[in-house]
């Protein structure tokens, strides 16, 4: 016994030393190329822009944050776009929820295991294919002279066309459509993981005890699958609030979101690093709020 104890103690010591050594490359890489840059950006966000905009200087200022949160000013361009991003992201998440929740039940209640696997495969496959190409595919359909416009023209317009063209592209709604299209799988996956384990005898029990379908849904099924819903909510909300490609390709100026604004301030023609940095910090704050909600109410096992 004594030998075993010393041996395991010895190995624990080795593991301890070895652990630090093995984690060093990743720690340095992320420390230098991730944590440090983020800290620099946070610091710059409190500075005054230099004359060329590509840098920050003293004095320190809170102006960029004031702009971001000033929802009452006459021309509140920054706060408008921040509010719009939150709105677009929330609506997208809600639509994904309404579509994804019954869909997860549909897949989970298929009897054959192969049908279930195939149904999940059909959900996951688009999510694995190139994001840009999928967004472009949607654009070819809803473009003013796109496929949908062609079909509608053939059947007489149905009152949806203006001068034979579809006016869906470059709107906020187009961005929401594109985001739902891209992030629906993120909602289905965690909900399916919970629904798969759901015992449907609870539904029978609720019915036997006199609950109708509506009450059964609200009082039994929803509370029991809530962890999946929360996980799905966060998995859709976090990436959509920082979406860049979808609003850029489908939204035009109407559907501009925070990320596009950050990009304009860092790499656009009128560079303003401190402003871009502050917007970046606001985006991080919004995401952090989402993560806190998740850690507070979500089931960590699911995602």
């Amino acid at each position, binding site marked *: 016994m004594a030998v075993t104890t010393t041996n395991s103690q010895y190995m624990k010591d080795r593991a301890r030393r070895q652990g630090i050594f093995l984690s060093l*490359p990743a720690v340095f890489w992320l420390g230098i*190329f991730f944590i440090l840059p983020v800290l620099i*950006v946070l610091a710059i966000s409190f500075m005054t822009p230099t004359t060329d905009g590509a840098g920050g200087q003293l004095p320190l200022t809170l102006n960029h944050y004031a702009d971001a949160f000033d929802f009452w000013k006459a021309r509140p361009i920054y706060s408008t776009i921040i509010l719009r991003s939150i709105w677009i992201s929330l609506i997208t998440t809600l639509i994904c929820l309404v579509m994804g929740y019954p869909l997860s039940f549909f897949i989970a209640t298929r009897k054959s295991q192969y049908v279930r696997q195939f149904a999940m495969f059909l959900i996951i496959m688009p999510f*694995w294919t190139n994001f840009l190409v999928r967004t472009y595919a949607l*654009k070819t359909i809803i473009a003013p002279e796109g496929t949908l416009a062609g079909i509608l023209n053939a059947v007489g317009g149905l009152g949806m066309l203006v001068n034979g063209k579809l006016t869906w592209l470059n709107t906020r709604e187009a961005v929401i459509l594109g985001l739902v299209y891209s992030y629906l799988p993120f909602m289905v996956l965690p909900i399916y993981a919970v629904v798969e384990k759901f015992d449907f005898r609870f539904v029978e029990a609720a019915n036997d005890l006199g609950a109708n379908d509506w009450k059964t849904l609200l009082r039994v099924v929803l509370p029991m699958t809530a962890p999946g819903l929360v996980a799905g909510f966060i998995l859709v909300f976090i990436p959509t609030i920082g979406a860049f490609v979808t609003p850029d390709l489908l939204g035009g100026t109407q559907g501009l979101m925070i990320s596009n604004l950050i990009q304009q301030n860092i790499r656009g023609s009128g560079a303003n690093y401190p402003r871009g940095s502050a917007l970046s910090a606001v985006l*991080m704050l919004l995401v952090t709020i989402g993560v806190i909600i998740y850690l507070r109410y979500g089931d960590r096992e699911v995602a």
Partner: protein
Amino acid sequence: MSEQMMSPPVRPALSEIDFNYGQIRRDMFVRRVGKFLFLLNPIVSYFFLWAPIVVLVILSFNKNKTVSVWGGFTFDWYLEIFNGTSQFTGDMVSALRNTLFIAVISTLISTIIGTMVSIALERGIFPGKKIVDAVLYLPVVIPEITQAVSLAVFFKFLFDAFQGFTGRQPTLGFGTIIIGHVVFSVSFVVITIRGRLSDMNPRYEEAARDLGANEWLTFWRVTFPLILPGIISGALLAFTLSLDDYIVTFFTNGVGTNTLPIFVYGLLRKAISPEINAISTVLLLASMVLVGFSLFIQGRGANRT
């Protein structure tokens, strides 16, 4: 107690029960509507997810230059791309070469340092472990645009400082892109490999050490073969992420280092044409093959243990 359970509850005759027929009718209506929506939902959802992709593939064979009118079947657009008569071919080939180079190098780096830190976190006990753990999850949560912008600002200042000291200005390019790709892919590699490591019984490693193998030998003869499927799927994930990345590449990209997503994005922003549809279809096919391969590897790995 037992006698009570034995005797069945007294059931009133049906004629004596005062059914609320209105309520029952309403409940049955709700059930019918629910059933209808429950069947409608998957039809709409699957159509919504797949119709754009199917339409894109079909239109890549469209003779007509527009995407709204079908003008007959043709392979022309594919032929143009593959024989090099298309205006895009040259740029596309060099972009593909850059993409593969960046993906291979960044996958190698992130897989190696990711495997090391996974073993450290799963098997090691050391001060600051929780912080390392938290830092590794940050790139997954933080929006990609924030990471990309921070890196761009960081390199700008670093290069300016470098010029101040040495008089030479370094440029953005392969190096900076690879650094950015490793940052976001290492977390995913670690998540994948740690899943595999925590499933593996640490007694195999203890047994190897008891039999006289040193750490190095234990890793290569015991741990590595057992977690290899995890390492491969982590590496494939890193590879896919690097291939598909647009945002980080855009912010760390220099002159002449355009990747395929950067090149494709430039096209997609311009116009819609069957030629771009054909290129997109090729990309779709490529990512499907990659995913199929990845699933195949994972399936084999799962069967082995």
